[in-house]
């Protein structure tokens, strides 16, 4: 009898508690949303809105003195919506050529940055803990001086060597400016590697080279990927370095876009070029994600 009693009491207690805990759960959900709302709104307004404005602008006519022509006809000038900018872009092979060259420059810069950053990041990660912070500080120290001044410094260095205004000078400048963006994520990755893994690999018969290729390198791929994103994408849009260090044939997408807005006052074409660049980068990112998934799928 007593047993029966206590069981029903237990049920009552449970019935009282369960909804309460569920309420708490719901409150937690709500708090999560509340906290993440401001940054979400910020991104929505200040990233999405300009992007949409850019899309809209690419379908307009340029204004007489820059800006955009009005949507509704005024005194016989071109107005309304048009595919003029797109026709221009796809109709002229030089634009595509500049796009391809920009991707090549960004790819080469990323490759050189990876090759140069890897040993440095590895060295920092393997240094005694007390020295690491100082070494990282030294890597980001160049940021303390203005970007333009550092590029002008290269003019002074490369000028007397007769290397200025060439593709070589552009690559040198690009690598110089973006190297820390590759070192930092790589270092952060390499520092987290468990040294026991290398010992285990050695213990099981792997020599130094094999240990690198089979253990360190595959484990550092996420670091390489985030470094590559931080180098590749900014290089694609960079216009100051080709303008200051490159020759006439070295202009990249960044210069092209800048020209439309500041020199030619053709906002629709500038918007179209920007949009094409965004689409190309997103396409590349999607391709990388897809490749990453199939690679993992095969391993699994």
């Amino acid at each position: 009898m007593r047993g029966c009693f206590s069981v029903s009491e237990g049920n009552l207690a449970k019935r009282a508690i369960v909804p309460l805990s569920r309420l708490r759960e719901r409150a937690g959900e709500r708090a999560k949303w509340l906290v993440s709302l401001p940054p979400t709104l910020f991104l929505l307004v200040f990233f999405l809105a300009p992007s949409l404005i850019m899309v809209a602008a690419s379908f307009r006519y340029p204004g007489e003195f820059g800006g955009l022509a009005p949507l509704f006809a005024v005194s016989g000038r071109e107005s309304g919506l048009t595919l003029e900018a797109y026709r221009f872009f796809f109709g002229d092979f030089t634009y595509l050529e500049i796009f391809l060259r920009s991707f090549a420059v960004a790819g080469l810069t990323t490759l050189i940055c990876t090759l140069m950053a890897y040993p440095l990041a590895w060295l920092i990660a393997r240094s005694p803990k007390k020295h690491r912070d100082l070494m990282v500080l030294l890597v980001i120290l160049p940021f303390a001086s203005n970007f333009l001044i550092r590029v002008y410094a290269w003019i002074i260095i490369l000028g007397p060597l007769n290397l200025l205004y060439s593709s070589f000078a552009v690559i040198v400048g690009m690598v110089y400016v973006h190297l820390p963006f590759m070192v930092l994520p790589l270092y952060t990755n390499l520092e987290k590697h468990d040294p026991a893994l290398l010992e285990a690999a050695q213990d099981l018969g792997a020599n130094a080279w094999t240990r690198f290729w089979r253990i360190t390198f595959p484990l550092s791929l996420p670091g390489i990927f985030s470094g590559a994103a931080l180098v590749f994408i900014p290089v694609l849009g960079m216009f100051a370095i080709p303008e200051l260090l490159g020759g006439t044939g070295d202009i990249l997408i960044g210069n092209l876009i800048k020209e439309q807005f500041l020199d030619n006052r053709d906002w629709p074409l500038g918007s179209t070029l920007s949009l094409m660049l965004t689409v190309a980068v997103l396409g590349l990112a999607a391709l990388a994600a897809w490749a990453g998934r199939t690679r993992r799928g095969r391993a699994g």
Partner: protein
Amino acid sequence: MAILEIRNVSRRYADLSAVDEVSFSVEAGEFFTLLGPSGCGKTTLLRMIAGFEAPDAGQILLDGVDLADTPPEKRPVHTVFQSYALFPHMTVRDNIAFPLKMAKKPEAEIRRRVQEALEQVHLSDKSSHFPHELSGGQKQRVALARGLVNQPRLLLLDEPLGALDAKLREEMRGELIDLQREVGVTFVFVTHSQQEALALSHRIAVMNRGRVEQLDEPSRLYGYPANRFVADFIGDINLMEAEVTEASQGHLRLRVPGLGEVMAPPVLDARAGEKGVLALRPEQARISAHAQTAELKNHFHGTVRGFLYLGDVTVYTVELDNGISMDALLANSAPGRAKFFDIGDDVFIAWRHDAGLFLRE
């Protein structure tokens, strides 16, 4: 012939002697354990056998060949690390295949042996999982399979059960014994847990401060510890300061301050006046409510001051009339046990004249 021979090996760190003139040999097929508290040098010794550290003096011989000039990757010695050190970017199958690939075995042989190893550790269904998808016990099994798959001459195990919870640890203990018997590989096992060492090993080297204090079979270590450190480290024991008052062929007569006169088994070359400790296991001391018959020479009256109920047994702490405290163990299945004692109860503690051990410092 001994498979592994350690000859006068020493290793110093700055002014600390991690391993100090250690010598022993391990027989083929043996389950050999290095047991000691943390910092006793057991892990350093293991790392020297694996090749990650070099001895400052002495030699390490495998099958009679000095290993000094052989780097770790060339030694037919594999290690199971405390943290398992499974490669996180490889599946269970690839982890186990790693040593075979390093040895450049043909693809078909690799596939066959990985499959065998997977079956041996009951993980055939987990072969495509990644390490982070496994439980602690499963990771442990993968590490074992990876260490054994290429049939090393020696498998070194560095506290491999340390990261598991108690129940799983007991389970893995049994599996480890079976596995070693099955594969016949010589195991050198490092642990700080005397229980693990006693349960698993054929022979144990008890280490302290870089030296081997005693090397023997588990039952000999437990029954006949060579000194105070070993007695104290292995199992529970009562240690009481003692002085020899009479030494003869058949027995020792000891004076134990705070207790009285005690009869103990003889010790080689004991002289009257010699000082040391009397070591008595709690299970050797009989606790009862009434005075015992005369067959038990050592007989003392006291009061229960505390007890620890462990399920199968209860350990009583008894304060004896002359002031010393002793632990006595009572199996809870003991037939005819009069009663379960309580704090404050009057009891008698007694043990046979051939129980207990006189140890020189």
